[in-house]
């Protein structure tokens, strides 16, 4: 992993069009500003990982218990 030291208001450039700026450092809390083309999706890693994990669980469903699927209320 590439490791860079940056201060508040300093940036790094990824590729030619993604800019990550350190906005504020307070204790163990860092605020980042991200400038990226609209086509680049940016997510907090833990949210992305959670969705990915849940997708994998969903894909693993064997399908044996389909008759037990809940029917909508009402």
């Amino acid at each position, binding site marked *: 992993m590439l490791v860079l030291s940056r201060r508040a208001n300093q940036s790094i450039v990824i590729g030619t069009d993604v800019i990550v700026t350190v906005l504020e450092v307070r204790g163990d809390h860092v605020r980042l500003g991200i400038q990226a083309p609209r086509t680049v999706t940016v997510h907090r890693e833990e949210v992305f990982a959670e*969705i990915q994990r849940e997708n994998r669980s*969903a894909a693993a469903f064997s399908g044996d*218990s389909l008759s037990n699927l809940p029917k909508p209320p009402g």
Partner: protein
Amino acid sequence: VLVHSERLGDLDVPDDKVLTFPEGLVGFPGDTRFVMIEIEEGASYRWLQSTDDPTLSFLTVIPWPFFPDYEPEVDDVTTQELGLHQPADAIVLCLVTVRDDSPDPVTANLLGPLVINAVSRVGRQVVLAESSYPTRAALVGG
């Protein structure tokens, strides 16, 4: 289009039931085309079967019969890229996970719904990062 599915067998699906997810689903970037299959067991459920991988299928559910208050806020970039002008243009499906050994055996992922343009049939898994919706919302029957 002819689709082979390990779960559902060989399927001859009309072209207008083929959905395209240009970026794939989160964690499955290589599978971009799925067919949507209605199932008998429950009218709110749909299978999504990959057209390219017979072993890859997802059970999904239309969220509102179970979660009438669900309001996924789709960001402007996504609505624009999908060509959605009003909520009625969209099909929204949530992936279902079944865990027989869990107190909530059937859950729906409300945090990462599939949003699909009903006309162009192009969709995307949207991550509602700023919402507090869970990935495992229990589906409770009536």
